[in-house]
């Protein structure tokens, strides 16, 4: 789960979390007593997806500096990211 969640968890932390997990999962498992078989369809709520026309509502560049400034590492108008492709030798 830690791997799927992209969180590095130390062995001692994992052990503590596992115990807490068992308790919480034990509690929420009562959901199976509440609903035996899943219904085929779900109801559409009274309100869903209130849409507006797809128009640009900001001025070009209005937020560019503020958003780029928030990035831990930037290069000009780009956010810096480590390379994700490596050669086969590596």
């Amino acid at each position, binding site marked *: 789960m830690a791997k799927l969640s*992209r969180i590095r968890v130390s062995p001692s932390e994992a052990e503590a979390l596992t115990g807490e997990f068992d308790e919480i999962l034990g509690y929420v498992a009562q959901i199976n007593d509440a609903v035996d078989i899943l219904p085929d369809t779900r109801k559409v709520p009274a*309100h869903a997806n209130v849409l507006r026309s797809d128009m640009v509502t900001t001025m070009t560049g209005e937020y560019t500096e503020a958003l780029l400034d928030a990035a831990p590492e930037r290069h000009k108008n780009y956010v810096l990211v480590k390379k994700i492709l490596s050669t086969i030798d590596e």
Partner: protein
Amino acid sequence: MQKDIQTIASLRKAFIQGTDTPSAVLLRCKEEIVNRDGEIHAYLDVYEDALESAKVADALYKEKGADTPLLLGIPVAIKNNILIKGKKATAGSKILENYIAPYDATVINRLRDAGAIFVGATNLDEFAMGSSTENSAFGPTKNPHDLSRVPGGSSGGSAAAVAMGSATVALGTDTGGSVRLPASYCGLVGFKPTYGAISRHGLVAMGSSLDQAGTFSNCVSDAEMLFGILQGQDGFDMTAYTKDTYPDIPKKEKYRIGVPYSFLGEGIEPDVRKLFDEAVLKFKELGHEIVDVSLPRMASGLAAYYIVMPAEVSSNLARYDGVRFGLHVGGDTLLDDYELTRAAGFGREVKRRILLGTYVLSAGYYDSYYGKAEAVRDLMRDELYSAFADIDCVLTPTAPAPAFKIGEKSDPLSMYLTDVFTVPANLTGMPALSLPAGVVTREGIDLPIGIQCMTPHNGEARLFDIGKKFLGE
């Protein structure tokens, strides 16, 4: 605590008559913070530029009197998971410790337009995950009524800020009770609107199908006024509904109030139950009718909530990757960056919920957890609507007990159980109001207790009416 800043109406009257000024009030709020917040720790940040805004408000009142915006000069505290342009929006987390909001949340925009003064940013459980404000990465907030106890959570800082008299009203967010529970623990009115009534634009997301902004105040009238200002679509939240979405829920002279007695069975402390029974009696004496209503589905609410919420948390918090904003901890590869950043930036409860959410959404478990929890939400909504055919609102305690001691609930499940009465409103999207209903005594100290009223969707007008009748406003 300052008695004279307690309601918007009283302050506004004083401002218009010229017997008090926004800057004088703000200075008294700041004095309160200087004197008491070292101990209470309601605030993460106190805004220096508030005085400038207050002085502008002083001048406007002098010039225009009553012909000014409704909240002009009113001191408001803001939970620090709500974005204010140019200010830190930490969400109580190390991962956003230095994050500066690039824009205003819609609720902030609307308060600004109404003339509100932002006193400061209040403490919260990290990413609003908790029922005590102990999970803040910046240390816990204490209950102004008893410093050895929690103020409730997750909006504990906002509740404490109003309860200590450093702000007239405050904004919080409520995903499973995070406004109503601290309001109950701190003796305030806590309001969670219908899901979609107020735009969530600019709120740090936790559980997107559950989150709503809510208010803390000393009276129901203030909650009503704030709601009038905050509600309505803005084009940035596609779940913010129009006034045609739901039928009108009318006010009435006398109400038929449903109490789900079988749901109040175990777990409620005896004196809390006694206070609740007295509140029921008060409603009867006011001429309202009390009926026992059967809501067996409510008992599954907490289990459904602790499946749906972590599932949405795991998805919403995937954005904190150390690349675009927030904390960055570098490793050898991009994957290392992600894992190390998130390990260093998130606290224990946040990690727990992300992992739990990842688990309940994973292949093979989806149907037995998330699918069923969503089905339970539908069943709960149906059950409540059937009940509302016969009754006007549902009344319960807000919480089974008064504020607990700091450190008392170290095991996560026992903390989760405090939300048993508040989560149904979030799961079903219905509005709910916590009202102060008296005090119980623990170790010689009086601790506030709240009762909670819930109506069908779009039932705010009725909710406020019931609240005002109960509190005699």
